[in-house]
Every structure is written in C-alpha cells, then in structure tokens.
C-alpha cells in the first residue's frame, strides 16, 4: 500500500492560487500586484474544476498559476516597488517635518525601475515584439491626442507624440504601409513589418477627455510598458534600416507645427549622405519612362512639359528622402554593407507601394494633415498644405507641379479666373479617393470621387469572414433577383392583358400544359411534346416559356423545402454523445445566425435597389 494521499497537496489545488493568496504571498498591495501583472504579462487562468482549485470552495475568485506567482516573486521590479514604498514613507515624513533638503535628497535618489529585462523576457526575439506592438501603437496614438491633466503629465504626452512621429517616419521611409480604413472609430492602418501585419487604430483629431469610469492608473501602467517596448522596437527597426535612433528633432520646425516633418532621419554613417544626389538618375530613368507613358494615357489635359518637370522634381525629392544604401559601397569596410533591411527595401518594390510617386498633392485646409501627409508620403507622393494646417509645407498652393487637390468641401460657386484655371489643370478629389487607391493598389478614376459628388461606399480592406455577405460580388445575385422581380411584375401585367383577350379556359390550358412539361422534369422530349401541344392549342411560345419557367421555380422551391424542412437530417443527432451534440448544435446555431445575417443584408439590398429602380422609372 502506497502512502496516503493528502488533500490539497497535488493537482489543481497546487497548480492554482487565488488572487488574494497571491497578493499575500508577494507581500505587496493589490495595486502593485496589478501593476506587476500588467508589466509581466501574467493573466488569470480558468481551472477546469474550480472547486478543486479553490480547496472545496466555489466562491467566485480569479486564479493564477502558482508558478506564475513564484516567477513574480523573483521579479526585480517587485523589490523596486517595495523600495518605493519605503521611499514614499521617508519623503512624506521629511515633508511633514519641513526638512526640505532631506526631501530633495530623497527625491533625487528616488528608486526607479527599468523594464528592459521584462521586455527581453516577454519578447525573446525581435519578431515576437513586432507581432505584439498593435496595442502599444494604439495606446501611443491615443495618448498623443489627449490633453494633459494632473494624472497625465505633459512630458508623457510629448513622449507619445515623439514615438508616433518616429513610427510614422519609419513606415513612410520603408514604404511598409499596406491598408488604410476610415472607420467611424478612427483610422485603421495596417503595415507590413518583417512579414508581420501590424494594425493600429488612430482616433480622429479631436480633444478627448478620459471618462470617469476608466482607471487611469491601469492605462498608465500599460503605457509605461508600451513606451519602453516601442523604444526598443524602434531602435532595432531604425538601426536595421541604417538610421540614427532617436531621430534628431528640429525644435524650430516643431514649434511651427511641422509635426512629422520636425524630425529628420539621418543615416548612421554620415559619409553616406553624399550619395543620394548622384543616385537620382539611376533610380528614375526606367520608371520615368514608364510613368510618362501612363500619364499620357491617363490625361491629355495636362501639358506634357509640366509633367516632366513635375516628375523629375518628385523623384528628386523621393531620392532625398530615402537614404539609398548604394553609398555604402564606396567604403566596403563598413559593416552596414551586409544585406540589411535597408538594402532589402531598396530592391525594386511592388509598384503598389509607389502609386502616388508621379503626383503632387495639395491638401486643402479642412482635411486632416496628420492622416493624409502620412498616407501620401508613404506611397511616394509629394504633398503640400496651407500654413493653417501647420508649417513645413514643401511648396505653396500656386505651385505648377500640383496635380491633385484633396478637398472635402462642397463645390462653391463664383470661382475666380485663377481658380478656374487651376480647376482645369488639377484634379479635385475627395479624401476617400486616396484611401481607396491605396487599398486597391492602383490609381482609381478620379471622376467618381470628384469634389461634391456622392461617394461610392468605402469598404474595409481587411475583408470579412469567409462566406459573409460581400457587397461587391453580391451584385450579380441581386441583379438576377431584380430581373426576376421585374419579369414577374411584367408578366403579371401581360397576363392580365391576355386574360382579357383570350379568356380563362385557354389560360388554364397553358398552365396545365406547362405543369405537364415541368412534371416530366428535365426530359427534353416531353418538353418538346408539351410545346407542340401548346402550339396546337394556339398559345404563343413566349407565354408558354414563361409558364414553364414559373413552374420550374416553384418546383425548385418545393424541393428546397423538402431538403431543408422536416428536420429529418437532424434526427441522426439523437445518437450523438452529449458533448458532440452540443458542439454540433453550437456550430449549427452559428451557421444559422450567419446565414440569417447574410440573408438580411441581401434582402435590404434588394429592397434598396428596387426602390432606386422604381424611382428612376418614375422620374
């Protein structure tokens, strides 16, 4: 006989630990425990048997892995938090006694924790970190747009703004933006970094206040972690791209509201700066020809001379912006001549990442500069903006090179001669055009998006779930059904006429004959015979055909009903085990729900289309 097993010494009772006992074990406050969990990425677990895990109690508690808590107990940050507690006591005592110099001394030696080791632990390899920066980017962008308050210091917000600018610069520099989606919540961007899709959401530029039911402490703890994580990720990304991190900030330009433009990217090796000017012809020669061709095909209104100037101009600019690594060939001893991300990115890119390269945009003052500057520049275009949107615009509104104007106003009457001239030369498009072009990977026709026009719907580039309703391909079905509906209406009308003409007996004849034809199913012989009979009875071929079609449709519906109805298929689930049956029922439930959703959307669409047609017919 083996040793007696004692209760609570093995299994779930040992594996799991409740939150309160974890806090007790770590000897810290609940707030500190939360902070640690956030920083270390430890989350509660759901034991399979709650009762066993909680020593017989079924009270609602959250459980953690006991090993996770043991891991937390060895965390240096925990020690720092304890030190901070002692520090807080000391400083409050010093302040209470009015010992200012002691307080200052203490404040200078305040314990500060670093998160470097946590970053390394949570993301052992760089790719892990890149995979997980979505939330971090969202948070950084959110805080960059928040006003400062006593809880959220201006320095913090400034740092967030800096990080967002660095990220945007990197994305623009590497041309890694893939998809953009203007949603009601904000703008979704998706970039491809190291073959990972990074998606982030940026709120529209409005001042927001933190609602009262949001715990700012939690958000700030997350932000602490995210700032460190992004710092390290950006450092790695920048150095891999051969750039200096952090990019130096031009404070003069920053104060004029240049935004992203206030930072200037600088290559790691200063010798490389001499390179780009000599490289320009190499880059452009082939592409210039190609794009000229496309431009001439596209529009004849723009004088070709202008375009040429414009083109070279834009390419010059592009080349300046990119620190093309050819320069490093001049000194081979430099280790950066190895194939880095930079050299890979300089390989001939997909044409879709350069779609705006031939164009120069002017952003009118009501469109958000932060969005469109980022979009246009990450797809190779040049963009200028009025002073009211911030400083640092590379050109003014009367620049000859401008090809497109992004404008979000209704059309106004009473243009001056100069404006009319401009309108002739430039294309005025609404902002959605830019986003739709990016998502389509090509330049779309501007006419649909012209100023003041009703825009075509803006669809998500991320796609829907498989089998969901697709508004683009759904058209064919809807068309068919619409035609059917129309036909039905028409045939009803015509039948009424026929009734008047021929009387009821003939009608009945036709119907019976058609029924006969359909009843004999797909047999062509029988159909032929029925046709002949109909002809003999003096029914013209058109009505007969329609009748047959109608009958066929009815039969099909009946068949569907037979297949679906009755629930005979479901009878087999009587013999399934309980678990399998539940799974099956869940799946069926989901399927049914999705189908219902799909059907509802389709139905709405047909209704809308029908209304539209009716209106068109009426007018």
């Amino acid at each position, binding site marked *: 006989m083996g040793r007696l097993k004692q209760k609570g010494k093995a299994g779930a009772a040992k594996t799991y630990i409740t939150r309160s006992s974890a806090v007790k074990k770590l000897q810290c406050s609940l707030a500190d425990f939360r902070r640690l*969990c*956030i920083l270390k*990425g430890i*989350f*509660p*677990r759901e034991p399979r048997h709650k009762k066993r895990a909680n020593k017989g109690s079924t009270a609602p508690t*959250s*459980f953690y892995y006991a090993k996770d808590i043991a891991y937390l107990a060895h965390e240096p940050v925990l020690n720092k938090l304890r030190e901070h507690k002692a520090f807080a006591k000391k400083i409050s005592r010093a302040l209470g006694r009015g010992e200012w110099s002691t307080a200052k001394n203490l404040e*200078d*030696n305040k314990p*500060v924790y670093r998160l*470097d080791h946590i970053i390394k632990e949570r*993301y*052992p*390899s760089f790719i*892990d970190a890149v*995979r*997980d920066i*979505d*939330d971090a980017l969202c948070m950084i962008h*959110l805080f960059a747009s928040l006003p400062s308050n006593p809880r959220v210091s201006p320095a913090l917000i400034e740092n967030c703004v800096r990080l967002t600018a660095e990220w945007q610069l990197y994305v623009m520099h590497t041309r890694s933006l893939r998809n953009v*989606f*203007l*949603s*009601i*919540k*904000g703008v*979704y961007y998706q970039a491809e970094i190291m073959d990972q899709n990074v*998606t982030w959401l940026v*709120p*529209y530029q*409005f001042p927001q206040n*933190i609602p009262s*039911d*949001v715990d700012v402490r*939690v*958000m700030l703890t997350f932000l602490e972690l995210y700032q*460190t994580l992004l*710092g*390290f990720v*950006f*450092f790695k990304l920048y150095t891999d791209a051969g750039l200096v991190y952090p990019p130096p900030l031009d404070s003069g330009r920053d104060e004029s509201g240049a935004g992203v433009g206030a930072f200037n990217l600088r290559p790691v090796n200063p010798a490389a700066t001499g390179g780009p000017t000599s490289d320009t012809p190499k880059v452009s020669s082939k592409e210039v020809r190609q794009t000229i061709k496309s431009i001439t095909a596209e529009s004849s209104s723009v004088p070709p001379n202008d375009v040429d100037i414009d083109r070279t101009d834009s390419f010059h600019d592009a080349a300046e912006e990119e620190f093309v690594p050819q320069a490093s060939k001049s000194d081979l001893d430099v280790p950066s001549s190895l194939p880095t991300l930079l050299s890979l990115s300089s390989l001939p890119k997909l044409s879709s990442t350069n779609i705006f390269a031939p164009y120069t945009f002017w952003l009118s003052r009501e469109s958000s500069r932060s969005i469109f500057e980022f979009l246009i520049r990450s797809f190779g275009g040049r963009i200028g903006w009025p002073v009211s949107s911030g400083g640092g615009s590379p050109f003014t509104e009367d620049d000859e090179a401008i090809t497109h104007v992004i404008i*979000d106003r209704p059309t106004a009457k009473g243009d001056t001669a100069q404006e009319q001239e401009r309108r002739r030369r430039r294309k005025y498009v609404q902002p*959605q055009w830019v986003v739709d072009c990016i998502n389509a990977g090509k330049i779309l026709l501007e006419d649909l998006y012209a100023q003041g026009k009703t*825009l075509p*719907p*803006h669809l*998500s580039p*991320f796609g*829907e779930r498989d089998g969901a309703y697709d*508004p683009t391909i759904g058209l064919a079905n809807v068309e068919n059904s619409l035609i059917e509906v129309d036909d039905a209406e028409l045939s009803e009308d015509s039948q009424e006429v026929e009734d008047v003409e021929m009387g009821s007996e003939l009608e009945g004849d036709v119907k019976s004959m058609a029924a006969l034809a359909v009843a004999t199913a797909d047999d062509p012989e029988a159909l032929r015979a029925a046709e002949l009979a109909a002809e003999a009875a003096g029914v013209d071929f058109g009505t007969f055909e329609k009748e047959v079609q109608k009958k066929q449709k009815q039969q099909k519906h009946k068949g569907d009903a037979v297949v679906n109805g009755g*629930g*005979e298929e479901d*009878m087999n689930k009587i*013999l*399934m085990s309980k678990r399998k049956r539940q*799974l*099956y029922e869940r799946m069926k439930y989901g399927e049914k729900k999705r189908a219902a959703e799909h059907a509802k959307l389709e139905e709405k*669409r047909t209704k*809308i289309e029908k209304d539209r047609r009716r209106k068109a017919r009426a007018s």
Partner: protein
Amino acid sequence: MAVTGLGKVRNKRKQEEVEEVEKGPFAGVVDLEMHSEDEAEDEDREGDDASDDGDVDEFPEIDAASDSDEESDEEEEEEEEEEEEEEDDADDLDEEDTLDENSDADSDLHIFPKSKKVVSNITGQTKVVYPEIEPDYDSDSSTEDDPNRVGNIPMHWYDDLPHLGYNINGKRVLRPAKGDELDRFLQTVEDPNSWTTAFDKNTQMDKPLSAEELDIIRRLQAGENPDAEYDPYEPTIEWFTGKGKEEVMPLSSAPEPKRRWLPSKWEKQKIMKIVRAIRQGRIVGSKPSAADKKQQFYAIWNEPPSNQPPPLPAPKPKLPTNSESYNPPEEYLPTEEERKQWENTDPEDRERDYLPHNYSALRLVPAYDQFIKQRFNRQLDLYLAPRIQRVKLNVDPNSLLPKLPSPNSLRPFPNYKSLQFMHTKARVRCLSISPDGAWVASGDESGVISLWEVNVGREVKRWNLGSKVGAIEWCPRLDACFLVAGTEERLHFFIPPNISPAMLTTTQSILAPATLPPTTQSSIKWISTSGAAEDGPILTIELPSASGLSRQLTWHRKGDYLASVSSSETQGSVWMHQISRRHSQAPFKKIKGAVQMVLFHPTKPHFFVATQRYVRLYNLAEQKLLKTLMPGIKWISSMDVHPSGDHIIVGGYDRKLCWFDLELSEKPYKVLRYHSRAIRSLHFHPTYPLFASSSDDGSIQIFHARVYSDLMTDPLIVPLKILRGHDVQEGLGVLQIKWVNKQPWLVSAGADGSVSMWCS
C-alpha cells in the same frame, strides 16, 4: 479704543519730549568739539523733514552755507509763520505764545496741546516745545468740551446701570440718550462722516475721529510706525569713526595670536580625509538626475534569445468589417427598429459595440466617444481575463453526425396517418391489438371500450364499464379470443363478437368452465357471469379494495398467466393471475419502491419489474433476483423487452430512453434523449426490427433497431421518423402506442381522444 490709543500717543509724546530734553545738553556737550559738520548734519535732518512733504533732494550734499531761511521757503506757510514766531521769541517761551498755541489748538480741535519744534539757542539742535500750562481758571480749555468727568475707570462697571459714573460733585452722570437701531442707521446714512466716527466709551457717544487719529489708523493699517514724526531712517551720527576721531591708544596690549595668520592643521586633516575618501571611491558625488530619468535604448535583441519558448501572444482584436466604415454600403445601415433594439440591449450583450453610421464626407465624422473606454476594455481583457487556448474546429458540422444508413433503405416503417378513430368523451388511456392484427380495442377514461377494425376503423362493439379504463390487453392465445380490461379494483374479461363458434366455445370454456377448479386460498374473487350475457364481461376479477386503478396488464406468451399492476403504492400492487386455475397470487411479499411496470420475458421464466428507479429481473422458477438494472432515470414510465429477450428499453418521465443489453451490463448501453417531454410508452415490434416511443410532446419517434445474434456486434439503432398528429392536452400527449402484429403499422392513443393508425 481710539481714545486709549490717543492716550498712549500722548504718553509717548511726553516721553519723547523728555528724551529730547535730556538729549539736548548731551548733544550740546559733544557739539562743543565739532562745529561745522554737526551744523551741516542738523540742516540735513531738517532738509529731510522738508523733503517728506514732497521734494526730494540729494541726501548728504547740501551746502553747509544753506541756512534755515532757505529751507523755510520750501515749507508750508503755516509752518513758516510758526518758524518765524519761534525765531522771534526763541529765548523765552512766554504767555502769548502759549495763548496762540491754545487758540490754535481750539481751532484745530486738537485734544492734546500742539507741540512746537524749536531750534534751541543753546545747543543749536531742534527740540519740541509744548506750551506752558497756566494754572488759572481758564487754563484748561477742555472743560466745556469734555462733559464726562467720571474719571479713568473701567466703564464696564456701569454696563448694567443707567448712569455712567459720578461727577466731581458726586452726582450721577446719566448715560446719554441712545437712539434705537433705526436711528443709528439713519444717522449713518445722513452723516457723511459717520464712517470716520468711533464710539467713545468714556462719553458713551460716537465721536468723529480727527485727522491725526485717522492718520494713525492708516499708519497702523499699513504697518508703519503710528507716530507721523518718527523717522526710522535717521542718518547715523558717527561718534568714534571718521577723521579726527581715531583711538590713539590700543585697548589691549596682548600680542596677536598665531592662528590669525597660520592655516589650520585640523582643518587640513579633515579635508584630507574627505579627499582620500573621494579618491578611494568611498564618497560618490550625486548622479545627475536628468540623465538618470531619460530611458536609454540599445540593441536588446542582439544577444541570441533564450531557449525558453516565448509566452503566448495575446489574441489580437478583430479587424474592422465593412459595417464599421464611415461610409458603408447602404444595406449595412440599421433600420429604426434595429437601432432601437441595439440601444435597449445592455452594452455587454451587444453583438457589436457600435452602430453603423453613414457620413457623407470625411470632414463630418465626429470623434468616437467610446474610444478611450474601448481601449481600456481591451486592456482589462489583456490583464484580467483568463485565457484559454481553444482548438478551432474547422469542420463541417454535418461531418459530426454519425454515419447511419438512410431511413429510405430501412423501409417499411409507418410514415403517415391512415385513419383516425375518435373517442368523443375523454382521453384514451390504453389500447390493444388482437393477436391476428385485425382488431383494436381502445379504452378511455370515461369507461368506454371500443372495438374497431384496423383496416377501416369501423367500430363493431362498445362496452361501457362506467369507470376509468387503465389498461387493456388482448390474450395472446390463438385458439381463444378474448381481451381483458383493467378498471378501478377490477379486471374484466370480454369476448369480442363475430368470432367463429369453435373459438367461442374454447374461449368460454377457458373463462367460464362448466366445472370450476377447486378454489384456492386467496383474497381475490373470480366471478363468472353466464356466457350468454354478451354485453357484460364474461369474467371479473375483483382485486383487493383500495388497490386503485389497475395501470398495466401483461400476458405471459402462453396466455395462461396474467400480471396486473395497480396504481396503489402499497405492497399488493402486483398480482399474478392464472386463468386455468382461476387463482391469483401476489408474487412479492415485499418490494422496494413503487412498481411502475412488469413484463414477462418472452422466452425464459423471467420476470421484469420496474420500480421508480430500478429495473429488477427475477427468475420465477427459482424465485430469486437475477439482476438489477440501473438506468439512471429519476422516474421510470415505461419499459419493453426486445422479442429476442436480450435487450430491454426503459423510458422515463425525465425524457430519457435507455437501451440495456442484458448480456453486457447493468448500466445502459445507450442513453438517448430526444423527446422534449416525458416518455409515455415504448413498444418493440414483435416481428419487424422496429421500436417506437411516444411522449407528452405529442410526437412518436420510430426507430430501426437491429439486434445481431453474434455478441461482438453492437445493436444498430437508427432513428427513422417522427410522427406528429396528436394534440397535447393538459400536458398529456400520446399515452400509448402498439404495433400491429405482422404489419409495420402502429396504433397510437392520444390524450386528445383520438386513436390513430399509422401505416407505411
């Protein structure tokens, strides 16, 4: 208060005067030595006084030549006059002067006598001179002015009294008349100077404050010295320093100590100690705090990662779909009722956390008010929500269904209702089908038993028993033909009409033999009526009283034994009746639980008894318990044995159906739950591989049940058809079902009073 303040001022004044007087001779003594400079200084001081009035002069550089005439030009006229007067009679202060003074004081309403500044002829210093007081009758000019002569006593002594004190004659000084609050208020409104009046305790009246007093108040408010003439910035008078004033002789003759010019040895040692500590690194200078705060980034991923697998990344939020667009296709926009429904659901229950909305232009899109809240919720998910790794099943749900032969290949089975027989009065509890499969007898709760044909549904006979019919069972004998019906405490035997005479005679001989077998000891009476009575039962068995409705009857296959179950909970609910011996006995002396149903084994001398929870199998020959089956049903409602005798099915009120393989185990081989209400009846087809179950949900489920003779193959159960056609009344659906012998037809009795015939 003001008055006491005044008093103080007056005192101070006097003190000053005394000091002045005392100072005078001393200054004069010192003056004797130094003439010119002192003069100049004096003039400076006067110049200062003058400059207080307005003009600012350079402070020290005033010509020594400047005399008092010059300064008097700058002063006001009054003072000028006074000055002149002073200069006139500076030597002696006579009466006229004092008179003048008095008149001056009267005109100015001065309480205290006006002082004068006079340059003494003796010392050449200025001094303040007060007028002499003439000790005659009129000398005190304030006699008339001050009516209160009570003296300087604490006035609160008289707070409660009508008078203020006593005058010099010992008469009471009465309190001056005081108006009420309204008067006082009116007075303050009317009198423009009321805000500069104060209450004088001595006179118990409001007195206007003089300009000096107001000035004193102003000074006190400003935190200045209340004395207007006090100059805090008087130039110091150098007595010992300066040219010509040096001390010639040293005060001490001690030699100067060494420490005055040698550096300290101990200080040096202390400093060296610190220097050494700094060199050895024991003392470290404070770090620059600004650099400390700044996070430094470096290539953290340059070292190879550890072998440990990375923690699982958090699941990413779902990507936005078309409906989240600022300009979605029109069909995504919610209708009015969808919007209302969305708004009425709780935020946690909503399928989507937003309502699709259409904006015609990007500039019109407002800020999303839930943005921060949603980010916060995401963070809560990240650190508070337990995560479970789920395997995502990407299978067709239909592939989960068990592979069963198609019902079409398992024909024949009943699938439509061919005819319906109605009991108009009450619900039909029971039915039975004759062994040859031609007749159906159905009994209802009003006591009517109808006999009708299976094929056409024509009723041929009707018996009315008058009390509820609980069970009907046709005798399985083929040479005889009769049926037995159980009612309250009685079992009635009936011979159907239109049977062959040979059969009739055998039946009559069985039920009512000419020679009765010897009677046995039993509490149960067998009563035979004469065979002639066609309308009544030919034989009646009277069960013991209070045994209740006989719920179930079952025949042994040979048709000699009949077992009946009564609804009473007492021990004597099960009876075994032997027709040939006309004898009844209770097989169980004692049985646990209420018996629900009993059955004879189709081949062996075994007997199944279903109590509320268990099914027991007894061997009747050996009289012992063979097996207890545990179906795990809370309350068994029905049971049936497969014709082979190796399998039984048990149904319960808790909707479960259990299939037992008697060879296999005491636990069910399969438990099925498919009815939505309690199972009421089960029946195996005697020849076809079919069985059916009926339930209170009004449906009948037909199964194909093939049992293999080899022990290795599991029985095959295939659901074939759900028959619906009975209405549910008062929670009761189909109460009994029976298969027709030799045909795949089913007859069902429902609580709606109908008996249906289901054909293939």
